[in-house]
């Protein structure tokens, strides 16, 4: 009898410990892979617990304490090992293979292209919207000479200060505050946030080396250049994009459209000009991301050629589709992209 009590106590302690481990692991898994997988793991853990209870309190098995303890312990160990294996697989898969997403969510000063911004948009007393987006690139306002950054206009729902407050990377610290957009434009789906401490660099994550670099923008590629290449030469221009949700992804432009219609969740449909359609992965949060080509010049180093900024996408397709607005849209709104690093 004494042995039996001792054994049960051991099992209970182990159960509590394993539950703690489960919770810790599941929290981590939930953080890294999302709610659907978390639910599955939760069901599995409940199932495991029920199984242990079934063994412990089954009137037939309980007579053989040794077998019960042995089975319970081993089942628990097996499930813990399985959970560890699953966690390590998912951590490897999603935390290291996300194209450098983690780098896009850090704090950067000066501000550069391809990093996360967080905005609070106040429509009125009863409606506040929070958005996560990505900085496109650094520009200068032609009329005032102000330096700042641009992103997609729908990131602030085309509202400006004082209705919008923007932070980089988020509002966890008060000194992350970078002001708010002073200008928005629907036809080029852009917003401008004046911020002196901005530099003409783009965050680029190299999937081969696993390192992130701040690459200086050397030049811009205008819509007509893309149109000419696509139409006359038949080439599909290779491009990169760096966004806060999918990191640095690679694709090619296959269509240069004069105008296109974008469907906004809150704003409804609106027409934008100088659309570039690319086979490229972008997802919610990547709005505003810079579209660029990154290349190495012998004796100079890595440089980026800027095409525009990402505004819309369909990521469920195979291949995924991304729509960007060429730099011409921003130029036409009275802003000149800064080059030269």
């Amino acid at each position, binding site marked *: 009898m004494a042995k039996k009590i001792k054994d049960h106590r051991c099992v209970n302690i182990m159960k509590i410990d394993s539950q703690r481990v489960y919770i810790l692991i599941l929290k981590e898994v939930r953080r890294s892979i*999302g*709610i*659907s997988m978390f639910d*599955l793991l939760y069901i*599995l853990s409940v199932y495991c617990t029920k*199984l242990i209870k079934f063994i412990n309190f089954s009137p*037939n098995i309980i007579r*053989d304490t040794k*077998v019960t303890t*042995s*089975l319970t312990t081993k089942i628990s160990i*097996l499930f813990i090992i*399985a959970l560890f294996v*699953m966690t390590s697989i998912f951590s490897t*898969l999603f935390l290291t293979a*996300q194209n450098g997403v983690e780098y896009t969510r850090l704090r950067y000063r000066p501000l550069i292209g391809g990093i996360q911004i967080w905005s609070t948009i106040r429509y009125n007393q*009863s*409606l*506040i919207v929070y*958005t*996560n987006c990505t900085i496109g690139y650094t520009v200068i306002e032609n009329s005032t000479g102000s330096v700042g950054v641009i992103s997609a206009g729908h*990131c602030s729902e085309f509202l400006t200060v004082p209705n919008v407050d923007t932070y980089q990377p988020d509002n966890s610290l008060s000194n992350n505050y970078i002001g708010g957009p002073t200008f928005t434009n629907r036809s080029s*789906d852009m917003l401008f946030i004046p911020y002196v401490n901005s530099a003409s660099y783009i965050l680029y994550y190299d999937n081969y080396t696993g390192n992130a670099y701040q690459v200086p923008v*050397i030049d811009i590629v205008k819509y007509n250049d893309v*149109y000419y290449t*696509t*139409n*006359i*030469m*038949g080439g*599909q221009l*290779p491009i990169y994009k760096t966004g806060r949700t999918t990191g640095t992804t690679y694709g*090619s*432009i296959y269509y240069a*459209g*004069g*105008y296109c*219609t974008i*469907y906004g969740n809150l704003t409804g*449909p609106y*027409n934008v000009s100088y659309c570039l359609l690319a*086979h490229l992965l972008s*997802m*919610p*949060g990547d*709005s505003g991301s810079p579209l660029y*080509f990154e*290349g190495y*010049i012998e004796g100079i180093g890595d*440089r980026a050629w800027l095409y525009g900024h990402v*505004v*819309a*996408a*369909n*990521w*469920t*397709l*195979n*291949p995924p589709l991304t*729509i960007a607005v060429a730099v011409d849209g921003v130029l036409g709104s009275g802003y000149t992209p800064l080059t030269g690093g």
Partner: protein
Amino acid sequence: MSKGMVYLQTLLILLLTLSIINVVYVDAQNEYIIEKSFYTKYSVCHAGVEAVINVSYGNATILIDIPNPPIYSYRNVHLVLFDHKCFYELSQHKMRSPIPQEIFKEKSENVKKRFSEINITTDVIVRNVVLTLSPGPINASVEWRYIFIIDLSKAPIDLIIKIIGEEFKDTRATIIVYDKRLIEIRDLYDRYGILKIGEEIRNIVSSEEAQVLLKNIITELGDYFGFAGLGGASSSPVDRGWPTLAYISVTSSYSDVSEIVKRFVREIADITRRKISEQIPLYIYFSEYGPRVVAIPELELVTTQNNTNTMIPRQLNQTHVSPDVYPEAHKIFRMIYIGSVAGGLSLLMAIVFHRILIRNRYNR
């Protein structure tokens, strides 16, 4: 070794085996797809202005490029199908031309001779085509492509495939057969001025009238709306690109939206023909079951009422990686799902058996 231990070890082995079987099963499926490509097959890709028939003949690949038959035409403005997926696949198709030019010449002479025997005239060109291009210090990936130009309106495609295929089947070359009718369209554009057409289309679609049309189409299509654009140029998966008048993508089939789309074609054609002569064919790309393109901020709504905050997440659940876009992840997901379920079931069965054994022992 106790019975319980044996069961557990067996289960562990079973679990691992099931996981491995699942991976092998998924790999075997992929293998099957690759395997299929070794056999002769005909598949047509509607790639806008052109339709590409992709044929594997022995080791050789034959791409037959013909004008895409329009699904609706009005005043020489043609609505043509554009398949996003096969266009991408064809564009990714690496043109293989490992055979020396002398051998190609010899083989192509044989092909021409056989064609002339059945009264088919052929021109052969070796074209230097840009596959990819990067700006700045030009970094172009260029490749030689061997192109037969044949009037395919007068020649049976099956016979052409057979003649070319038999001659080239031992090589790993990609042979392109270009329909003369496509060359004629290109000639028309070149005579008119390809850049001039682009400029004129841009001016037309910038007009208030055209912009209203673009806005209207989204309202009229409603839930069927995927994407719409005016003007521009599309690249080609095979050769040079094409100027386009518009691009419509719907989430359903053509039959669901045919009346709306036809009206759009007529209206945009009427506006266009005021400036560009009807002799110049123009094209509107149309995608069925196409992409629904949306603006992509990551946003959540927060409603503040009577000092209480209600957070309604909107797109946050969509930010996680979709299995569709990461096939490798999808494979591992499946492996773990099936492995875990199988393992769980095996455990349950083993415990039930174990329980029966114990019961039998006590009943004895």
